[in-house]
């Protein structure tokens, strides 16, 4: 067996770096780095893209030190259930520590993507000041900053290509932040301001996009009136992805024809979104580009079924469709007939709290889509009823699912025909879909479904469970199976201490585990923390905010539990509602 040093000396460093450049996947690079010290050294110097799935898994300074040549970094903060307000607002996920370390060690950073982090205006100012070559800022589901911070980015990032603000909570305190883009800024390729709540100076925006000939993605916020959309489109006919602003106005035929021709003028348009307050009046204005559309997001448009059908039947090349459940089964049947290239479908609830008229969106719509769209691999479906038979049919029709998320809105809903749990249906999904990476369960489910998942879902990376299971066995099946499980999030299930303690080692192979409103006690968490030093066991108890951990008895029930592997040890920014057990 050739020794490490001689292996590496076969070729000069540059050749190895060139070889490694063909390993884009982090997992492959990580594996290469473990081969020998020489490769570790070579690989770390040649890695320029880093993904940190949990900002607390590693010290920022350590990451920056190990990979000195990084140009693009992506970091995620809060657990996924923070999207549904299950995580206290002061839990953490602050970006300062990372931005400061990066400013220090990665002055050539060009791209930064942050998800579910708390980003302050100071962070944005630091980014704007320290990274001379900064090109891409993407903030997804973040909070803590204002338009003043955006002004700093606009003013100082001379080569800015992408400003992608997706579903953030942004305080609006600087009305004219967009005026801070200098006249010399002509490099924008992506500008997504859809989540901003405040007014936007459309004239400034017009001038900005007028001088950015490479602009491909423009997503406006709902303050941009429909009349002004026409002018914007005239200045950017090269757009590939458009998010409209408010898609409603006083009807007059002149506006309609101007809008229609402006949209028709965008010959490269592939994606449409926005459509706030859209009604049937102006929808036909987009008919001319429907044939070329690959992505259509109508999830903010409360348009009724018939109009939706008229629109979507024209979109023969659609690959991604996000729509409200107002499309109903009939609409989905039409989609199944027209959109043969459909890959991803998301159906959102127009009335999640059941106050209005019932919508006729049932399991039939899902079955129709599964039968009619052979390339379908990703589904998010909110509905009120389901049957095992339907799920079995879907599983048979679509063995290629990579992501299946079904949300039956009333918890514990059984098969409405047989009154049985939906174990059989979901089991069929995991047994048939061998490439399933993401799964969300709902409806009435016993431990049996978890037995199937544990046994069959070998590629599963993320599992979301709510209001399911009978007892500890359910969790045990998951943790003792699911070889590739990375993220497990559980709420309101009767899972207790035993499966956690019995499967402690598994938790180190995963990124994180979230359990809320289950049956875990503090004592078990203490035991787990003692047993597994490479895990941070965070107990979140908002009712006991500020109370000393040492005085709590072992049988104290745990409201919320977040466990994640880390090489950084306990974090230092825990709020009063979080105890980190060691």
């Amino acid at each position: 067996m050739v020794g490490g040093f001689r292996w590496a000396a076969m070729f000069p460093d540059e050749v190895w770096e060139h070889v490694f450049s063909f390993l884009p996947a982090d997992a492959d690079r990580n594996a290469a780095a473990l081969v020998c010290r020489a490769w570790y050294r070579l690989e770390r110097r040649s890695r320029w893209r880093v993904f940190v799935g949990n900002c607390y898994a590693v010290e920022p300074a350590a990451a920056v030190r190990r990979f000195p040549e990084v140009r693009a970094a992506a970091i995620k903060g809060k657990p996924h259930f923070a999207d549904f307000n299950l995580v206290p607002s002061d839990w953490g996920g602050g970006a300062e520590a990372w931005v400061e370390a990066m400013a220090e060690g990665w002055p050539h950073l060009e791209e930064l993507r942050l998800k579910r982090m708390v980003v302050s205006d100071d962070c944005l100012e630091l980014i704007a000041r320290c990274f001379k070559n900064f090109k891409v800022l993407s903030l997804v589901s973040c909070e803590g900053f204002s338009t003043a911070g955006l002004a700093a980015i606009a003013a100082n990032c001379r080569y800015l290509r992408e400003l992608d603000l997706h579903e953030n909570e942004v305080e609006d305190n600087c009305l004219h932040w967009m005026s801070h883009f200098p006249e010399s800024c002509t490099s924008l390729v992506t500008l997504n301001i859809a989540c901003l709540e405040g007014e936007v100076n459309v004239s400034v925006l017009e001038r900005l996009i007028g001088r950015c000939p490479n602009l491909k993605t423009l997503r406006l916020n709902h303050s941009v009136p429909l009349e002004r959309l026409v002018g914007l489109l005239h200045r950017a006919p090269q757009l590939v992805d458009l998010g409209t602003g408010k898609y409603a106005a006083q009807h007059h035929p002149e506006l309609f024809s101007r809008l229609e021709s402006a949209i028709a003028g965008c010959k490269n348009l592939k994606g449409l979104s926005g459509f706030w307050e859209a009604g049937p009046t102006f929808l036909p204005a987009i008919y001319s580009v429907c044939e070329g559309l690959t992505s259509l997001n109508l999830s903010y448009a409360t348009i009724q079924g018939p109009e939706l059908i008229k629109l979507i039947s024209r979109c023969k090349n659609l690959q991604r469709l996000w729509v409200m459940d107002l499309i109903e089964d009939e609409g989905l049947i039409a989609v199944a007939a027209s959109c043969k290239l459909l890959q991803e479908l998301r159906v959102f609830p127009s009335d999640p709290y059941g106050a209005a008229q019932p919508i006729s969106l049932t399991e039939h719509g899902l079955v129709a889509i599964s039968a009619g769209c052979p390339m379908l691999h990703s589904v998010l479906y909110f509905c009120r009823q389901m049957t095992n038979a339907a799920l079995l049919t879907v599983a048979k029709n679509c063995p290629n699912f990579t992501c299946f998320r079904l949300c039956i809105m009333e918890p514990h809903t059984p098969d409405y025909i047989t009154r049985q749990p939906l174990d059989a249906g979901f089991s069929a999904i995991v047994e048939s879909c061998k490439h399933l990476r993401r799964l969300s369960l709902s409806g009435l489910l016993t431990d049996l479904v978890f037995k199937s998942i544990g046994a069959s879902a070998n590629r599963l990376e993320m599992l979301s469970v709510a209001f399911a299971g009978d007892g500890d066995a359910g969790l045990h099946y998951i943790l003792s199976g699911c070889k590739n499980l990375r993220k497990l999030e559980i709420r309101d299930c009767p899972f207790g201490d035993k499966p956690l303690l019995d499967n402690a080692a598994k938790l180190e192979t995963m990124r994180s585990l979230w359990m809320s409103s289950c049956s875990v006690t503090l004592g078990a968490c203490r035991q787990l923390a003692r047993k597994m030093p490479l895990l941070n066991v965070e107990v979140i108890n908002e009712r006991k905010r500020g109370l000393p951990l040492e005085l709590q008895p072992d049988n104290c029930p745990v409201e919320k539990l977040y466990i994640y592997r880390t090489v950084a040890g306990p974090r230092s920014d825990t709020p009063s509602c979080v105890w980190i057990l060691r």
Partner: protein
Amino acid sequence: MGDQSNSPSSSIDSSSHPALCSTSSIFQTRRDLLSTDLKLGLGLSTSALHGCSSKERYASCETTMDVSPSSQSFLPPPFPGPYACMSASLLRFMPSKFSSSSVSSMLDRSKSFCTSSVLWEQLSHWPPIKPLLRSTLEEKVHRSHSKTFFVKVYMEGLPIGRKLDLLSHNGYDSLMRTLRRMFRTTITCPDTSRVPPEKAHVLTYEDEEGDWMMVGDVPWEFFLRTVKRLKITRADKC
């Protein structure tokens, strides 16, 4: 048994919330088993939430939620059909006066029960939709449900009047149908009616100038703007 915090906001008047009325009445029928009222840590109703930004809304929901730690894996009770039933999570809000053994002994795993969706929304951050979509939908609901316009309706000869929400109707036909149902009489237009004038009734309204006018002459939207109250009078008076 875990401790029970009793913050001042931890109990709400159950009669103010329609969904809770039905649940608290369930507890009254099972008084032999459950000896106290339901206490919930909600200081907010849906309408109160609309004033604040989505972030404030959720933050305040969380801080007033009062989760009792006493119970572990409460299971839904076997309530039959017409009663609004409670789910496991809701039962956790019961104060620890019940020993967990007495409660869990009466509960058994029932697979057929319903929950009050409104309660779910307020208490459990369910279904899982993102804040932006949630606030967009809430705005829509607010816009469509916030307007009511109740006017008094009297029928000649009856001293006690009724009240009617004009905005829940979309035109005169709908209004007439409701009034006929409410007062059990035919209301007609006197010029087209074949019923002798002594027996027929017509609908009149008082406008903003204080004049009594026949209903139906002006467009519905205009009518809504000027009407103050309604009166059903005998046709021969017109």
